[in-house]
């Protein structure tokens, strides 16, 4: 199982703890897993079969550039975070 950390507002909407367990061989399947467990959660993360532009997925400390097709081999934790602009 992979530890998943969702944005605070998503946790609030679905009344979830700081971390939840999920599984999936790629990010798409992991989100599907979460959506089955917590119906409606997918729409907080995915739009038009892509991660929402304002959401980043950080997989074991590294932000994926592959989006939903990112494979999840030997992954221990995933953070879904608001994307951050810089200067």
């Amino acid at each position, binding site marked *: 199982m992979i530890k998943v950390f969702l*944005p*605070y*507002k998503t946790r609030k909407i679905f009344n979830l703890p700081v971390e939840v367990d999920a599984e999936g061989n790629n990010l798409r399947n992991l989100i599907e897993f979460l959506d089955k467990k917590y119906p409606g959660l997918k729409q907080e993360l995915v739009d038009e079969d892509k991660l929402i532009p304002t959401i980043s997925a950080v997989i074991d400390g590294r932000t994926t550039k592959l989006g939903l097709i990112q494979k999840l081999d030997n992954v221990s934790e995933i953070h879904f975070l*608001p*994307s951050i602009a*810089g200067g």
Partner: protein
Amino acid sequence: MVSKSKKSDYKVIGTRPIRHDGYDKVTGRAQYGADIKLPGMIYGAVLRSPHAHAKIKKIDISVAEKMKGVFAVMTAKDLPRLSDKQRGNSEESGSEKHLSENVMAMDKVLYKGHVVAAISAKDVNTAREAVKKIVVDYEVLKPVINVDQAMKKGAPILHEDFVGDHLGKKVKNTNVATFNKYTTGNTDEGFRKAHLIIEKEVELQTVHQGYIEPHNGTAIWDEDDRVKIWTSTQGSFANRDSVSKVLNLDVSRVKVTPLEIGGGFGGKIPVYLEPIAAVLSKKSRRPVQLVMSRTDVFDASGPAPGGKVIVKIGVDKDGKMLAGYADIRLEAGGYPEAFIEAAAKCVFSCYDIPAMEIEAYDVLVNKPSSAPYRAPGSPQVAFATETVVDEICRKLNMDLIDFRLLNVAEKGTRTALGPKYRKIGLKQVLEAAKKSDHWQSNLEKNPKSGKLRGRGIASGYWFNIGEKSAVNLSLNMDGTVILTEGSTDIGGSRASIAMQAAEVLGVKAESVRPSVVDTDSIGHTDVTGGSRTTYATGYAAYKAAHMLIDEITNKAAKIWDLSEDEIIYSDGVISSKTDSELRMTLREFADKNPFGPVVSSASVDLEEAAGGFGTHIVDLEIDPETGKTDVIRYTVLQDVGKAIHPAYVEGQLQGGATQGIGWALNEEYFMSDQGTMLNSSYLDYRMPIALDLPMIETILVEVPSEDHPFGVRGVGETPICPPVPAISNAVNDAIGSRILSTPIKASKILNKLKSM
């Protein structure tokens, strides 16, 4: 300046060659945006709102458009109405609608200086005179100019049609565009167990990046609906994207040529004039150029957000941090984006705290829409956190560096937003600070002059985005290499990128000639921002250089009728593994190669790299008669990963510190109650000049990044994070009392001294 670079086998990296564009810059031959002159070009001027908050009831252009010499008049009716669709996920944030409305107001002006109309004419003076003939009927509304006013119940609302996002709830009639929260660990328990809890609130005024070159834009809208733009931008592709969005064109119909840039610091990521120049060009059937005045730049380009930050930290009796809480309220200006996520990421970034809670508010106010400014959001929160840290040390009577080392963030530390750090170098920076000559020196606190002296220290952090970059290489017949890239060169990145290619190729830095080219001539390259350019575009150059070597060995093998694996390429010399007679320099190869051009092209799309940490030490002296503060010694220490060109790294550290010193002591948007900036010139907006500062000492600490083949970390933004708290802490050390609002100017110090 002191460099503590470790010795290595590098031949080019770590050296200090003259920058490739140096001669053009010092002789004045370099072309900036306003230098462009095109055949038949005419000039534009814009009409700006005199009000900070008003509805546009009617615009009468009838007199202006009939004036002699006027070619075209434009209002927002000439722009397509765009949707609320959100843009991108890195530098280009916000909705398409707001992007367009910030270029030219549709129904409402949201800050003084907001553009409401534009004119093209045969010359600048005619355009300016014609603009005065446009009559706008406004319904003037009460402005809100700070977070307290904007968040007050019953406050005037900037966007009646806007829906705020408050922890997922859709909220109408609010000036809080976004309210977000981040939690990790159990803060209630942490604070309950704490031996000491310190809480401080700081307030920051709006400040500007202060780049020397004003915004500009030159455009031709061709008869076949292709738009060509020449401009000063931190990212030609981002500029192309924004222009195409505002004009509702495919990106392929827009070509952006970036000119030399006279500073940006984040402020030249947004577009302001380019879409206007394009529409005026279409209507005038001529190339059109617009250039901002300095007052326009202050009034209507994006400054750094002001706001308020509260930080509370609880520690045990030994000084170990147990819990942290932050409340961050930053001004977005007229449209959303106050960099609150970045601020949340940075607020506790220097420390290992088991429980953290952060609440962050993106607040709309009637000021120009905020733009990135060097580590956006980080200096604001560093002011609060490092003030609290300083106060804890004083209460516990702990050494200011030992306390930081006790709580230092390291590889594996969980950050406030959740993910754990990869390899970072704050501990090494603090250890170097402790050993530094500055920290080891004694400061005479009571000199004979009667002035008051104090020393302050503070740390700060900025991350290092990756994103997309492309580089092309081409071998000339004389053995030199042409490098083309899409990264605007603000701080010497042509040199730092060329040096990485030169290192791989085993040639001198001067043998690689870099050029920054237009959007039709290179692969997509993201902005020069987020401390990414030497890291990401440098990585692309590294890859392209290896690919060029593959090309060279492939063709050399054909010349000698050998297989490729029998060829050795080393230090610019090609030789055979099996026949010592077969040997040629790169120049000889380039000259005799009959097998066509030797070229390579590489691109990267990198994830964020582990960021950079800095610690600054400052000594200052305060005149108790006048309240004037003089910085008398200043040292910047920073983990720079690997300094490709140490002189430019040192320059970044000195520049960032200088801007931070200005932010701390002098700079502010001095606003009237009606939302007008009253000091919109460099005469009244006082930035530090060379005479105000001592030589800023730099100590480069090199903890190589794991994410780059040469260990590069971004260095440009971190140095603006520690100065405000370092100076504030030094002022407290000098006068025995804290001033927790910027700027810490003479009048505030005098008032504080009188009240003590």
